[in-house]
């Protein structure tokens, strides 16, 4: 029969179900009447004849059903029947249904949240056209993807592989529409940025390459949609309006479309300005310095037909040219292509490894939930073996019964999936709206999309089929005559064995989760107590950029001194220091350093790459950094005396060869400046990753190398938990007294530190949540198993008690197996968990799995779990009343 015809008849049948049913009925009725006519002719009276005809016909309903099937494709009707029947069955045992749905909802919810984060950060491409061939450049073997502006221009103009290369940087500025300036974050973009990405304006026009004519030639602003929406109330009249950024006049050109939120996934700017004009906002912008790499990211679309390797080779040949032409600045200039949006390979690999690990754990949770539900279903099927046997005896086919059991499982899994996804979406919306760092417009763009919904649905269906499949063998083996004869207590030995395996697997999974969350918590606790080289407690940070208020040249240090002096008059303040970027901040400066005798300042000749700070004389005191030997900076270390530096111990031993007699030694900066080391401070943590290895760091005098964007560190002898509001308002009023037009950002140092601890906190929180979920699943799993085995063996236990068994023996008989399984599963899980935590060490500081406290903790936790889970069944086993039991039977 041709498939089209079959399909048509199936569809027709679906819509003409009543008609067909009527037709079959009429035909069968006609048969009975004809038969009755015959019988009547043989001398029977009509009623008797009809009765006999019906008997002779056989099981009418069954033949009717088989007729339907013979007519082809009544799958849908059967499915509808199954769903109705399953609904009725589940309504009859609401406890079971709710437990199953909640279990699955938790597991599916966890999976969809983790998957959505993975999807939002790694799987979903940037929201621009043709994003599959959009790549950004990274220098080979260098985790940073920054470039210098002249290098960017050379790469852009000389390559043959890209349809244009765009660049952007991240800036902050004081934005002034007439009232007091507000603090904004923006991208400085190359003129071709929007054209290369293929973004179309929502309103007005974008900046184009033709707008640029050298330094400060394009004072234009393109607003992001969200900033336009929130700060200009969707006013279409903003196009063409004059505003001021750091006191410089700019013109608003247009508004970007709502779906375009910049090219760094987790950092959406308030607006965009041309890169050539960003010197007006950030003094460090030098369009000609080839050694000064401040261009944050360079990216573009590959030309059609050009592969990644070809493009990398093309860029590297430009790199070879640059290396030859500018040996001092462009050493080892080979290039690779990386996915845009996450700042190259800087932290993406660690994050991806962690998220993949988390996804695996979440998958394990789901598997554990399936194991749990599988054993619940198996237990249920065993309890329903009588029903199954009866249905078989009454002529139902095994396939039909299995299909109905599967419908039940899928119904539960879909309900669980829907509930889990609903919860997951709430969490994800909250997560997307969450700004973990109040001073940055940073968020985690993890709003669910169609992929997430589809994955959740698939997971739900797969798990439904998985746990629905557990009791299949049991049903297939059911022998109706045996069961009906012997009653429901007929042996079901094999089924229990399958459940045992499932339970061990589940306990092992739980132990893995508990182990990893404990390792993470321990690591976090330790990272809190590690020596940071600073004392964040009871200190305030004030971030200001004097450039935003129009200060220039010598006005900057003078104003900074006035600010320091003003802060020192606040009651309770013991020291005030300045630093260009505080340690453990989201950004940091690195510099190459050279030996004293160096004459060739190529990067490959550098002794080390060190983290570099510019600080004021009181900084070490204010920050709580201990000076080991030598002297501190003084207000006399200014531009009239030779350059001096304070270095950390790691710097002293790595660059100067010795930690003890480094004071008085010299080294050179990349520009050839000779620097004398005058003091040595303790090592600390510097980059935004608290798990970093010891790094060499140098502190230069801010009086010798000025910076306008600085953080004041204000050390107090007050309790910041109590007095921070008061101190902050004192700081604010004194700043206003000095200059009302200077935007500032005030917070406690502890708050600022959240950034550095963000990774390990998130890791710990997510692992903690998964650990708790795993524990809950294990408890319900063990509880179910123990309760089931006690209830099955109640009679046996009663006999034991009657024969004089002690409490201990009764318990051993009732729960020995559960405990054996628990011990076995925990041991397996512990070993696996210790192996898995190696992944954790990337993110969580000192996440060492070989920690006796963790080992003891896991064992204790699992024992506790077992105790909690078996408590009620144990009580029940102990309270067995042999008399009552024996009477009942």
């Amino acid at each position, binding site marked *: 029969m041709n498939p089209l015809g079959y399909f048509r008849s199936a569809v027709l049948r679906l819509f003409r179900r009543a008609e067909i049913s009527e037709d079959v009925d*009429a035909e069968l009725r*006609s*048969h009975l009447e004809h038969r009755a006519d015959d019988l009547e002719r043989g001398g029977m009276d009509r009623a008797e004849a009809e009765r006999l005809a019906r008997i002779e*016909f056989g099981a*009418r309903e*069954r033949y009717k059903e*088989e007729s339907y099937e*013979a*007519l082809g494709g009544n799958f849908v009707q059967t499915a509808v029947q199954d769903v109705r029947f399953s609904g009725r069955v589940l309504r009859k045992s609401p406890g079971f249904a709710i437990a199953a749905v909640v279990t699955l909802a938790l597991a599916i919810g966890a999976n969809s949240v983790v998957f959505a984060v993975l999807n939002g950060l790694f799987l979903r491409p940037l929201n621009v056209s043709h994003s599959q061939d959009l790549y950004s450049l990274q220098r080979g073997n260098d985790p940073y993807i920054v470039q210098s502006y002249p290098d960017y221009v050379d790469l852009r103009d000389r390559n043959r592989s890209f349809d244009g290369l765009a660049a952007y940087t991240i800036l902050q500025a004081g934005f002034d529409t007439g009232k007091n300036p507000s603090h904004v974050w923006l991208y400085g973009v190359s003129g071709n940025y929007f054209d290369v990405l293929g973004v179309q304006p929502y309103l007005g026009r974008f900046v184009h390459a033709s707008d640029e004519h050298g330094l400060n030639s394009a004072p234009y602003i393109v607003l992001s949609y969200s900033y336009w929406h929130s700060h200009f109330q969707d006013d279409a009249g903003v196009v063409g309006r004059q505003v001021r950024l750091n006191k410089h006049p700019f013109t608003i050109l247009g508004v970007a479309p709502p779906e375009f939120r910049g090219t760094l996934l987790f950092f959406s700017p308030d607006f965009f300005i041309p890169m050539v004009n960003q010197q007006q906002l950030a003094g460090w912008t030098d369009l000609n310095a080839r050694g000064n790499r401040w261009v944050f990211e360079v990216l573009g679309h590959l030309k059609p037909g050009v592969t990644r390797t070809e493009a990398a080779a093309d860029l590297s040949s430009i790199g070879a040219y640059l290396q030859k032409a500018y040996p001092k600045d462009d050493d080892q200039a080979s290039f690779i292509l990386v996915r845009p949006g996450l700042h190259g390979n800087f932290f993406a690999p660690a994050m991806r490894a962690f998220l993949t690990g988390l996804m695996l754990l979440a998958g394990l949770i789901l598997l554990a939930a399936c194991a749990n539900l599988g054993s619940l279903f198996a237990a249920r099927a065993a309890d329903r073996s009588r029903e199954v046997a009866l249905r078989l005896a009454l*002529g139902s086919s095994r396939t039909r019964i299995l299909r109905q059991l599967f419908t039940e499982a899928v119904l539960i899994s879909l309900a669980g999936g829907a509930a889990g996804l609903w919860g997951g979406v709430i969490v994800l919306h909250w997560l997307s709206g969450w700004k973990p760092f109040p001073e940055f417009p940073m968020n985690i763009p993890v709003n669910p999309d169609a992929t997430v919904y589809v994955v959740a649905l698939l997971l739900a269906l797969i798990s439904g089929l998985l746990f629905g499949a557990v009791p299949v063998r049991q049903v297939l083996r059911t022998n109706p005559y045996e069961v009906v004869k012997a009653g429901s207590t007929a042996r079901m030995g094999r089924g229990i064995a399958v459940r045992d395996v499932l339970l061990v697997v589940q306990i092992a999974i739980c132990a893995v989760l508990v182990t990893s969350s404990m390792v993470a918590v321990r690591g976090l606790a330790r990272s809190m107590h590690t020596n940071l080289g600073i004392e964040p407690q009871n200190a305030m940070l004030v971030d200001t950029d004097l450039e935003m208020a129009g200060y220039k040249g010598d006005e900057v240090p003078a104003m900074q001194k006035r600010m320091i002096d003003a802060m020192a008059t606040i009651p309770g303040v013991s020291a005030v220091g300045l630093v260009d970027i505080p340690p453990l901040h989201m950004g940091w400066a690195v510099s190459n350093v050279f030996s004293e005798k160096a004459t060739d300042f190529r990067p490959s000749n550098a002794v080390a790459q060190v983290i570099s700070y510019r600080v004021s004389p009181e900084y070490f005191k204010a920050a709580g950094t201990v000076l080991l030997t030598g002297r501190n900076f003084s207000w006399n270390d200014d531009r009239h005396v030779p350059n001096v530096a304070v270095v950390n111990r790691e710097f002293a031993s790595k660059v100067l060869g010795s930690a003890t007699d480094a004071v008085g030694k010299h080294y050179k900066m990349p520009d050839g400046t000779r620097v004398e080391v005058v003091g040595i401070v303790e090592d600390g943590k510097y980059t935004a990753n608290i798990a970093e290895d010891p790094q060499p760091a140098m502190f230069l005098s801010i009086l010798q190398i000025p910076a306008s964007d600085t953080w004041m560190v204000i050390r107090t002898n007050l309790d910041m938990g109590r007095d921070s509001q008061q101190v902050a308002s004192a700081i604010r009023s004194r700043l206003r007294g000095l200059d009302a037009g200077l935007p500032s950002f005030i917070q406690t140092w502890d708050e600022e530190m959240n950034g550095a601890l963000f990774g390990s906190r998130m890791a710990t929180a997510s692992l903690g949540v998964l650990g708790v979920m795993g524990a809950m699943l294990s408890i319900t799993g063990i509880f179910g198993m123990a309760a089931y085995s006690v209830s099955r063996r109640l009679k046996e236990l009663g006999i034991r008690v009657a024969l004089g068994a002690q409490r201990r023996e009764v318990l051993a008989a009732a729960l020995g197996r559960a405990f054996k399984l628990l011990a076995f599963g925990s041991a397996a899980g512990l070993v696996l968990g210790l192996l898995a935590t190696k992944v954790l060490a990337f993110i969580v500081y000192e996440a060492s799995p070989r920690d006796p406290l963790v080992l003891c903790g896991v064992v204790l936790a699992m024992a506790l779990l077992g105790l909690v889970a078996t408590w009620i069944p144990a009580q029940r086993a102990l309270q067995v009343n042999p008399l009552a039991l024996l009477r009942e039977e």
Partner: protein
Amino acid sequence: MGDQAQLLPGTLDLLILKAVSLGPLHGYGVLLRIGQISGSALLIEQGALYPALFRLVRQGLLKASWGISDNNRRAKFYELTTPGRKRLREEQDGWNRLAAAMTSALAARPEEV
């Protein structure tokens, strides 16, 4: 579950085709005709006839239409289609070969081996 159709699979279909090939019949009529042509030697459970009839209709071997029977009652009449006639011939040949082979096999005597 004991089931006559399982005893000799396919025979019921063949019997129905043969019965209908002798002239259009309604369901009960098919049953009577089979009883008649087999000398009442073959017993078919009445209900089992209908799934088989519907299957044959779906395969396009039979076609059905409502009409009035000799008893002056509404009944659905079945008749062979062209593919049905062809199938009947094939099945009949197949059956004859099988029956001949079985007969000769079962009639074998020791000296013939």
